[in-house]
C-alpha cells in the first residue's frame, strides 16, 4: 500500500478556564500521529526522491492570525496551510476542495470552539466519498491497507483495516507524546494557501445565530464530608488501611435500606 499525501486538520482551541487561544489537544494528537507516520514511512525508503516522499500537510480553516496556530508550530508542524475563512463560512466545502487528492486525512474528534459538533470529519468524508474510521488510537501502514486500532469502552480495543483514501478520526486518549518546543514555533511557518480559488459559501445553519447560555448546575454526588486533616488524608492514600464503612449482607431489603438511611442522616446528607 502506498501513501503519498497525508493531511492533518487542526482547529483553534480555547482554554476552558482562561479562554486563552491555544491548540486543541485532540487535533494535536492527530497531527502528532501524522508526523510520526510520515517519518516512519520516509525512514523505510530513505532514498526516495523528494517528489516521492510522503508528506504531511497541516491544514486549518479559519483565521490565519489566530494565536492558537503557533502552538501547532511549536508542537512540530513545519508549515500550516490556512484557508482563510470567517466564522460564518462553511468550512466543509473549502476543505473538501483542497483535500481531494489526499490519501489520508487525520482529524481530532471535536473542536473546542465554535459549533463544536464533532461532525466535520463525517461531512468531509461524505463530501469526498472517503472511508471513515472514528475513535482511532493508533494508525499503522500495512501491505493490506491502513491498520487502525480503535478505542472501545471499558478498555476494549478493535483493530480494523481501512482502504485509502480515508478520514481517520483520532480519539482524545490516543497515546501520543506532544512536545512543545519554542524553537520550532519560531522556525515554523503559517501560509495562506495560494491555490484557493473557491468562494466560500455561508453556512445555512449559522452557529452565530444560536442562543448561548451558561451550563446548568450539574447534579452533586452525595458524599460524606471527610473531617480528616491533610496529613491524615495523605497517610490514608499512601498507607493501606481500612477506609471505614460497613458491608451489609444480612437482613431484608427494608433493613438494608434503613442502614443506608441511617448513614445518610448521620452525615447530614439528607434532612428528613
Amino acid at each position, binding site marked *: 500500500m502506498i501513501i503519498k499525501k497525508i493531511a492533518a486538520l487542526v482547529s483553534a482551541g480555547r*482554554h476552558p*478556564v482562561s479562554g*486563552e487561544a491555544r491548540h486543541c489537544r485532540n487535533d494535536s494528537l492527530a497531527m502528532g500521529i501524522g508526523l510520526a507516520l510520515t517519518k516512519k514511512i520516509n525512514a523505510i525508503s530513505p532514498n526516495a526522491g523528494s517528489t516521492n516522499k510522503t508528506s504531511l500537510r497541516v491544514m486549518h480553516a479559519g483565521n490565519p492570525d489566530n494565536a492558537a496556530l503557533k502552538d501547532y508550530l511549536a508542537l512540530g508542524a513545519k508549515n500550516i496551510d490556512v484557508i482563510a475563512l470567517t466564522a460564518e463560512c462553511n468550512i466543509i466545502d473549502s476543505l473538501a476542495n483542497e483535500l481531494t487528492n489526499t490519501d489520508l486525512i487525520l482529524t481530532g474528534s471535536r473542536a473546542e470552539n465554535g459549533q463544536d459538533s464533532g461532525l466535520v470529519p463525517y461531512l468531509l468524508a461524505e463530501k469526498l466519498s472517503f472511508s471513515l474510521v472514528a475513535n482511532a488510537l493508533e494508525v499503522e501502514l500495512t501491505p493490506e491497507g491502513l491498520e487502525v486500532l480503535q478505542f472501545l469502552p471499558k478498555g476494549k480495543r478493535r483493530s480494523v483495516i481501512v482502504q485509502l483514501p480515508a478520514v481517520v478520526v483520532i480519539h482524545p486518549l490516543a497515546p501520543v507524546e506532544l512536545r*512543545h518546543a*519554542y524553537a520550532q514555533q519560531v522556525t515554523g511557518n503559517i501560509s495562506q494557501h495560494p491555490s484557493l480559488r473557491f468562494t466560500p459559501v455561508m453556512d445555512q445553519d449559522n452557529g452565530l445565530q444560536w442562543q448561548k447560555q451558561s451550563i446548568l448546575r450539574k447534579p452533586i454526588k452525595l458524599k460524606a464530608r471527610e473531617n480528616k486533616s*491533610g496529613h491524615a488524608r495523605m497517610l490514608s492514600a499512601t498507607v493501606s488501611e481500612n477506609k471505614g464503612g460497613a458491608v451489609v449482607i444480612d437482613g431484608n431489603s427494608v433493613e438494608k435500606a434503613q442502614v443506608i438511611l441511617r448513614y445518610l442522616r448521620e452525615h447530614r446528607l439528607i434532612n428528613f
Partner: protein
Amino acid sequence: MQMLNYTGFNYSVTALFWLASAALTIGLWRRTQLWRAGQPAAFLWLNLLAIPKRYFVDLHHVVSREPYIARTHVATAGGAVATLALVAVNYGLMMYSAALNWAILSATTIMLGGVFFIWLRRRNAPARLSRGAWSRLPYTLAAFAIGLLIISLPVPIISGSVALLALLLLLAGSAELALGIGLGGPMKHAIAGLLHLAFHPRQERFSGKLSTALKPLMLENGQYGVSKPSDFKWNQLLGFDACVQCGKCEAACPAFAAGQPLNPKKLIQDLVIGLSNDEKSGATDASFAGSPYPGVAVGDHSGSIHAPIIPLLIPAETLWSCTTCRACVQECPMLIEHVDAIVDMRRNLTLTQGSAPGKAPQTLENLRETSTVGGYDRNARYHWAVDLDVKTIQKNSPVDILLVAGEGAFDMRYQRSLRALVKLLKAANLDFAIMGALERDTGDTARRLGDEATFQMLAKQNIETFNSLTFKRIVTADPHVMHSLKNEYPAFGGHYQVLHHTTLLAELVSSGQLKLEKSTETRKLTYHDPCYLGRYNGETEAPRTLLKSIGLQINEMERSGLRGRCCGGGGGAPLTDIPGKQRIPDIRIQDARSIDAELVAVACPQCTSMLEGVVGKRPDVLDIAELLASALDQNVEPAR
C-alpha cells in the same frame, strides 16, 4: 673536579627549569585554545590584576570553612609559588647564589610540610574526594619538593648518585607541574582557577553582592541554551576546568544524597571531558575516579567539544534532578557556577525539543495558557481573602504595599499562612492591597525548567501590569516570587523594591509598629531556611529575629542558614520527579528529627508543601507568619 661537577649540576637545573617553562607555555597555550572554543564573553585584561584580592578574600572565604585543608593549601601552594619564583631567579637567571639557595630550602620545607598533611588526609580521604590522578598528587609534589630540597642543601653532598636522584625527583615533580597543566592533569586547577577568578562569568560576586539571577537568553537572536560544550561561554568552560574535584558540591547536593542520578562534581568533570576533546577522540569518563551519578555506571559517557552533551555525555535525568538550590555553588572553593550550567543545558532541551519530563510539560502549558502553574482561574487566586476585608489594588489608587501571593494562594494549606500574614499586616495598620486577578505567575518555575520563552512572556506581562499600578514596595511570602521580581525582572526593565514577608515583619517588630506577645508555643522548634530566601537573597536573619521576638528559641539543624539543606521543592524538581532512593523532603525532616524538633518553622509555600508531604510521624510545619499571628495581642482589635 668537585667544583666542575657542581657547576654542571647547576646548569642542568637551569636547563630543566627552562625546559619545564617551555612545556608549561605550550601546554597553557593548548589549554587556552580549548577554552576559546566557547562563545565570546566580556573580556578585560585588567581583571588579571584583581586575582590576588579575589584569591585571598573571596576564594579563601570559602576554603577557610575547612581550616585543615585551608592551612595545608596555604603551606603547599604558598611554598610552591615561592619556590618556583626563587628557582626562576636563582637557576633560571643563572645566579646560583647561596643565599637564594637558603631561601629555596626554607620554601621547599614549607611546601613539603603542606604536602605531608595532604598525604596524611589522603590516607583517610572522605568519599567526596576524587582519587585517580589526584591520589598521585602528594607524591609528585613531594618529589618536586624533595628534589629541590636536596639541590639547595648548602653542603656539597652532590655526589653522582644523590645528584642523579635529586634531578630525577625534580624531573618527576616538574612533569606534574609543567606537563600536567597542558595535558589536563590535576595541577591545571592552579592556572585555570586563578584565571577563572579573573574572568568569572559573575563578576558581581567579587564586589560583595549576591549574584543569583539567571542571565536572560536573547531568544530573538536564536539563543536556545547549550547543546554542545562549545555553546557555553568561554569563561564558563574555563570555570569547569578549574574544578579540583574536592566533592564539596557533591556532599552538599540534596539530589545526590537522595540517590537521584545527579552529582554536581561529576557533571562538571563530564563537561571537562567534553571541552577537552576534539571531534575525533571519543574520550570517555572511564578515568573519573570519584562518586558516580547515583545509579549510573561510569565509563560509557563520551563527548567532544562540538557534539551534543545530552544524552551521551550527561544523561538528561541528571539535569532534571537538580532543585537549583545553589548549595553546590555555595560550597565550591573554585567558585564554579553549577546551576547556570545546568539551566543552560535544560534550556536547550526545553526550547528545542520540549523534552522536560514528568509533569513539567503540563505545567509549562498551564503557564502559557492560564498564567498559573496549576491551570487555575486567575480570578480565584485571592478567594482565601474574601472575608478578610482586604483592598484589591486598582489603577490610579496608590498603596504603600502590594501583596503578591504567588501560586501558593491556590493551595488550601498555604492559604492559612497567607491569612495569618494578612492578619499581621492589618495589626500593624499598613496600607496594603492584594493583586487580585491582575496577578500572573512570575514564571519562576518556567525559567528553572529552561522555558525562557514562557518566562520572558510572563515577565513582560507582569512588568506591564506593575507599571500600570502605584505602590511603594512589593511584599511576598514566596521566596521564589521574590527572587524573580527582585533579581530577575530588572533585566527586563522591571525595577521594584521587593521584600520577603519576614523582612517586612522584622522591620515592623523592631520599629514597634507590630506589637506581639510572647508565644505560648512550647514545642521544640527549628527553622528551615528556604534556598531562595537564604542563598538566593541572603536573608537568614529576619526569620530568626522574628522567632526570637516572640520568645521562641531556635534549635539549629546541622545544615542551616546559607548552608541550609534544600526541601526538594525548587527548580521544578517536584514536577520532573526523577526517581531516587529516597525523597529530599524526607532527608530534611530527618535532619529535624535528629535534633528532636517537634516544630519546623518555614517561610516558603514550596517548603511548606514539601515538608508537610512527608508521611509518618514528623514535626509539625508552620509558617513564621502563622506563629507570629498566634502571638498577636488578642486585646487589641485590628483597625478596620
